[in-house]
């Protein structure tokens, strides 16, 4: 039984490598980081062997407790896609205990479990100081791995089971993002602690508390033994073991419960009236626009791109700041970058509709109306963004003369990018997350094309904006008329890009409508 489950898990792992290159790169990066972290941790733990007991204990217990906490919380926050959900096996008539065992053992396969296993083994080295400490460290290693794996299993199942409703699934990811953002003040506080002076005291007091919690007990037991407190050591080891047993009981209970409980019903929410449809004109283009706005507001898949629009430029800025670019130059980046991402986010819009696009085809909706309507949400966000954001950024830069070129380049990126997106989403759709799935889930069947299309649509928009960008650079260097040249050229190029993009995209949509539907059906 267990062997079959292990084979299944390995097969599933192997299949992830049959996805698009971008995903393989993602997996490779994950593996690289995981193993890198493990190697650093192993080196650190070996080094701690030669540090005095109290300090080594404080460090291992604090970090260990954080690791276990991560295994508990990450699945809850991000709703990890559970390939081995117990419910998938409910019809095979496997006894609950055997199924729970098999699934728990299978969970050992995977990057996080591998990393934690390496670390758990390495901490034995740290405590190779006296016999009792070694014994407790070895027991602790097993307990740590079991705790982590079972914690992740339990919380993953809770996430898949209790948070399974469509709305809950869509919201948890966003909530997690908010939590991370709101935690950043704590990070700031930690950063301001004078580590040289108070660091050790802080660490040892944290470890003192964490060592008595189930999160840190197993890590703390060998430290207590090495410090010459065998009684405390054994007590802490027992706390760790008791927690594993508790997790096991919880896991088995959860499996038993999940096997017999149907999907939790979503609480139904009511929406009054027609919403955005009332605000938009009663033409096909207006209706498509209202539908798109409603989707941008209601559909988690659009939320992720909405979150990415302000976050992605931030990464640009931070990277350049680290590279030593002066801050006032960096102030020029966010608005054009947000425009670029905003226009780019529409480049696979038809795939997001999935087969619902039949309604447009059966109604013989004008391709141009379809194309333009879909761009309206990005325009509603983008135009005010430029109008408000460009003066602020020009102010931060410290010279109002750049304002025209900032506006010109931004509008060029926004409009021409949207025109490009409207052509690309009609001509080169690629598989997207299906409606109702978690926005973090990846479509299984994404081919090699998707990565190419993504980068093509991204860089093509930049290429179109190069002429006004060049004029803006001249304006930055020589000032004066160049800035207004950038504004004019940006508006002309952007406007033309938007206009012809909608026309061309509309013609493609009208011509290829049945093929588009066939594509969404394959997806």
């Amino acid at each position, binding site marked *: 039984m267990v062997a079959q489950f292990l084979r299944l898990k390995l097969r599933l792992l192997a299949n992830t490598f049959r996805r698009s290159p971008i995903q393989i790169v993602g997996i490779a990066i994950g593996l690289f980081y995981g193993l890198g972290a493990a190697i650093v941790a192993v080196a650190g733990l070996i080094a701690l062997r030669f540090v005095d007991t109290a300090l080594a204990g404080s460090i291992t217990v604090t970090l260990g407790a954080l690791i276990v906490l991560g295994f508990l919380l990450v699945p809850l926050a991000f709703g990890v896609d559970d390939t081995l959900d117990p419910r998938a096996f409910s019809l095979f008539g496997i006894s609950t205990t055997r199924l729970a065992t098999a699934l728990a053992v299978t969970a050992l396969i995977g990057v996080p479990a591998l990393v934690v296993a390496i670390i758990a083994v390495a901490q034995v080295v740290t405590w190779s100081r006296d016999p009792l400490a070694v014994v407790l460290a070895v027991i602790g290693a097993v307990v740590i791995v079991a705790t982590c794996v079972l914690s992740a299993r339990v919380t993953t199942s809770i996430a898949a089971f209790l948070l399974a409703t*469509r709305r809950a699934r869509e919201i948890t990811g966003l909530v997690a993002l908010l939590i991370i953002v709101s935690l950043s003040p704590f990070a700031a506080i930690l950063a301001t602690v004078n580590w040289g002076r108070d660091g050790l005291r802080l660490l040892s007091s944290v470890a003192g508390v964490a060592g008595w919690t189930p999160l840190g007990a197993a890590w703390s037991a060998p430290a207590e033994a090495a410090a010459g407190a065998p009684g405390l050591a054994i007590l802490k080891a027992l706390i760790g073991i008791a927690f594993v047993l508790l997790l096991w009981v919880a896991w088995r209970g959860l499996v038993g419960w999940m096997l017999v409980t149907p999907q939790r019903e*979503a609480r*139904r*929410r*009511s*929406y*009054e*009236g*027609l*919403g955005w*449809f009332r605000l938009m004109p*009663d*033409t*096909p283009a*207006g*209706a*498509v626009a*209202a*539908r798109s706005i*409603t*989707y941008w507001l*209601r*559909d988690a898949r659009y939320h992720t791109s909405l979150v990415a629009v302000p976050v992605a430029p931030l990464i640009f800025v931070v990277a350049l700041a680290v590279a030593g670019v002066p801050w006032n130059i960096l102030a020029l980046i966010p608005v054009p970058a947000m425009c670029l991402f905003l226009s780019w986010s529409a480049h696979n819009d038809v795939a997001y*509709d*999935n*087969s*619902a696009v*039949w*309604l*447009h*085809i*059966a*109604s*013989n*909706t004008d391709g141009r109306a379809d194309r333009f309507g879909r761009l309206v949400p990005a325009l509603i966000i983008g135009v005010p963004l430029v109008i408000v954001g460009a003066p602020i950024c020009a102010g931060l830069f410290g010279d109002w003369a750049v304002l025209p070129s900032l506006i010109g380049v931004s509008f060029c990126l926004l409009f021409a990018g949207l025109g490009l997106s409207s052509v690309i989403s009609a001509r080169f759709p690629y598989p997207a997350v299906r*409606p*109702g799935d978690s926005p973090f889930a990846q479509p299984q069947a994404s081919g090699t094309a998707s990565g190419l299309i993504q980068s093509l649509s991204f860089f093509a928009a930049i290429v179109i904006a190069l002429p006004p960008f060049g004029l803006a650079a001249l304006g930055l260097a020589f000032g004066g008329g160049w800035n207004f040249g950038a504004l004019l050229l940006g508006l002309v190029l952007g406007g033309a890009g938007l206009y012809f993009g909608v026309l061309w995209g509309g013609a493609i949509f009208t011509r290829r*409508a*049945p*093929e588009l*539907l*066939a594509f969404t*059906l394959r997806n």
Partner: protein
Amino acid sequence: MTDAAEAEQPEKPAASKPAPRTRAASTSTAATSGKPMVAEPSPAAPKTPRKSAVRKKSTTSAGIAKPPAPREVVLVLRDLSKRFGETVAVDHMSLSVPVGSIFGIVGPNGAGKTTTLSMATGLLRPDGGSIVVHGADVWKDPVVAKRNMGVLPDRLRLFDRLTGGQLLYYAGTLRGLDAATVRRRSADLASAFGLEDALNRLVADYSAGMTKKVALACAMIHSPRVLILDEPFESVDPVSAANIIEILQNYAGAGGTVVLSSHSMDLIQRICDFVAIVVSGSILASGTMDEVRGVGSLEEKFVELAGGRRTAEGMEWLHSFSD
């Protein structure tokens, strides 16, 4: 077959566009719409013994039944074919649907019903043949043809992040109706289909039957001449189904035409005036309900044509239950 002449005349639409001259003229060979509702074995179709048997059957039953009055034809499929790779999904199918009728298409799983209806509604590009709706070719003059069609596809998603009310409004405005008209009709449709309480809820939260009903309402909102409904009664409860049938019958009574597919033979036999039995992409029998079913029920005729039942052998292990 004296009414061959009248059968040609119905092609002329009441509306603006002239009938597509191309195929209407060229394919009017011997059997073409001799009687509007009879299958037209195309020259390219393979002559199977089954097919000739069918024709004999329909002519004999036509002899018994009183000859149907010539009726205007509103939907014509000519020589329609579609293949997916090696599989022939629809094999040179021809069909004429008279105005004011409820036309049922039945067939076993994978017979090509959905493929045929998808091509007829402009959702799937045919490999060959033509579809004419009220005088306009669906693939050459989609603007006029699609205006006259209301479509309920099977197994396609809806824009389900909209509320029922928004979806109806969306379907209406995409069809070019103005806001006031859409609102009035939405209210009427909602009460006719029993959706009043559901209009403010997301379609994603609907049950399967409710989703079907709101999709059906969307298909009707622009008052089309022809309704093409793929499995309209699937997962709809009996009370709602009775309501829908009544709506469809009133619609047909007022000159509308309904083409629907279903697996429920009883239902088709009860509500349809005409029926076509489709097996492996070809029409094996078509005509008025009485012509097709003969003396038995439609279900008996269907099982007979669809290749009969196969007796399950070698499944004895199924009867020795494992514990």
